[in-house]
């Protein structure tokens, strides 16, 4: 058995306070202090009093982004989502356009798309259990 297959799950966005700790966590994992190039994003729904929405890759079983990659740099991951082959990727941004959730953005410095790897590091830093990690093999189960 390899590592368990996971995805990030939005448990309840109503509990989100908009602190963006998850975003800082994502970039910190890459060795940065920043909000820029986070793979998860928090946005207010037109005024903070109405609450927030969390935009993150939902690990689609049939991912739109993959079909629009002209160089096959995105491969379907077992049980949903995609894995990026950085060698093949030409940085065209087609996947960014293709994702209906706008869950992919470009790392402008490196000219590569930012694709969630479902590591769950962001989840550790959510103070109000807005997001969770869901195991997707052998049926769903939230950690």
């Amino acid at each position, binding site marked *: 058995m390899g590592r368990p297959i996971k995805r990030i799950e939005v448990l309840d966005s109503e509990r989100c306070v908009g*602190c963006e*700790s998850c975003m*800082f966590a994502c970039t910190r994992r890459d060795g940065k202090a920043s909000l820029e190039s986070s793979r998860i994003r928090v946005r207010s729904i037109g005024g903070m009093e109405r609450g927030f929405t969390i935009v993150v890759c939902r690990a689609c079983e049939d991912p739109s982004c993959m079909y629009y990659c002209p160089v096959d740099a995105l491969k379907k991951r077992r049980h949903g989502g995609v894995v990026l082959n950085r060698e093949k990727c030409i940085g065209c941004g087609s996947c960014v356009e293709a994702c209906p959730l706008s869950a992919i953005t470009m790392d402008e410095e490196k000219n590569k798309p930012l694709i969630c790897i479902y590591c769950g590091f962001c989840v550790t830093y959510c103070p109000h259990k807005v997001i969770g990690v869901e195991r997707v093999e052998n049926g769903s189960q939230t950690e």
Partner: protein
Amino acid sequence: MDPKLNRVLIIDLTRHSYRIEEREAYFREYLGGVGAGLKLLKEFLDPKVDPFHPDNVIVLSVGALTGKFPMVSKVVSLFKSPHNGFLGESHAGGRSAIALWQAGYGAIVIKGASQIPVYVSIDGEKISFVEARALWEMGDTRTVGRIMREKAGKTGLRTIMRIGKAAERLITYATVTTETYRHFGRLGLGTVFGSKQLKGLVISGKRSTFPADKKEYKNMYDEIYNLCTSSPTKKYHDLGTAGNILPLNSMKALPTRNFKEVSFEKAEILSGENLAEHYLGRRIACTHCPVGCIHIAVLREKYPQKPYFYKTTFVSYDYEPLYSLGTLLGIEKVEDFLKILEAVEKYGIDAMTMGVVLAWVTEAFTEGIIGIEETEGLEPSFGKGNVYVEMIEKMLESKNEFYKLMGRGVEALAKRYGGRDFAMSYFGNELSGYHTGPATHITHITGGRHSHLDSAGYSIDQKLMMEGKGIEPQEMAKALFEEEAIRQVLSSLVVCFFARNVYTLDRISRCLKLFGWDLGDKELLETGRKILVEKNMLKRDMGFDVENYFIPKRVLEVPTPLGFVDPSYVKKTVEHFKALLFKS
């Protein structure tokens, strides 16, 4: 070091021009925030300038730990205050700190005055002066925010600061609102924006910082994060600061009806507990703050003539407005309190000052010092919510002398009409809501911005209450001085004061080390003292002398939990404090 932190964006509103310069030493030596901000203010501001003159200068700054650790979420603003004529200093959160830092600056200096209303859009190095004539005179700061937001895009990553009608009308205690629910509240930053025809600022950017030791950085982050999300810091998330109403009421330190009383028979109604139970709609956070102390109440009002039409308003509440626009005015219904607070938000007025002013007006009216000729027919009375909303609106619209003076604070009113004995302010800044003992009043006198937060005397009072003892003036002066010095370090980094127990000098020292500042805890404290002294030297150049303080008689007439405030004790403490500042 954090290289881009050294960069200062200097905006000239007169010429609609800007330049970017480096001030490495300010940030290396003074950490940023209030420390670096003071250096910039000294460099650009003539301390004798009229606060309304185009030559008044605004500095907005972040610090060495901004963007790197949780709860380092504040921007410091410095300017010459149009409210009291001394140093204006006010802090705010929202997204402002992270946005300014991501834009790639440690500070922004704003000078001059625009010929037409503008707002300035700062997206990294792309700076534009945006036409704002159509936004001027707009009724509601929230509408202005929405318009600027739609134009800016980038939701979640940028800050939108703006002023309201109060600032345009040069009410001396107008605020700058950021992200609808946070404010540069005190001492009139909004007024300075207004006098410069600066409607607001939109700030965003994309920069990052790279710690040299990633592993150590993660460990340090975890240490801080875990402390921020556990007790006692967590209490700010639960009830928020509104949780203070009942404890202060039961210790008889809750100013009520213009400080005539110190407990309120309806405290239960205005308590954090009651608000949370029946009105709390959502809690939100400043960027990079896992605590989320911002409490937003939902006010649902029926339209009188239109059946089944309702207006739903969101109003953020805290202890301070609950005191100033609640207990201080004897308000007995949450709805009344929220309506007054909503008016204050709508026009961009400092809630604390507004409450103290309205409390003075009510007492002056009751005492016959002013009458309906002054109020243009309105009859203020403690507990009557509607008349206060009307008075706020009249203050903005009326041309009569009384309402004009109302827009300048209690001291201006008392100077014209009398009633200084119950005009609750020190050095022109209206009092906060703690009648806990002598220390809180001395904090308001000696503190750099005459705010309860400067040296937190209310907390010293409560400690003494628990220990059941008093301390000598010399010891009191030292305690207040040291606390204010430590807070200069926090306000230079710039850490939210709610995390003051998390960011001990030792932890700050370790955080800083990861980014190239080599300062031990003793050196940090020394830096704090140095900043405090420099701040007071700048105030001295503005004509300030702490020994010219005046204690409103009301303060001395009403007992605190530690007994009556003894004016000779205050005098001695102030003298010792001054000696600590200017010992050399």
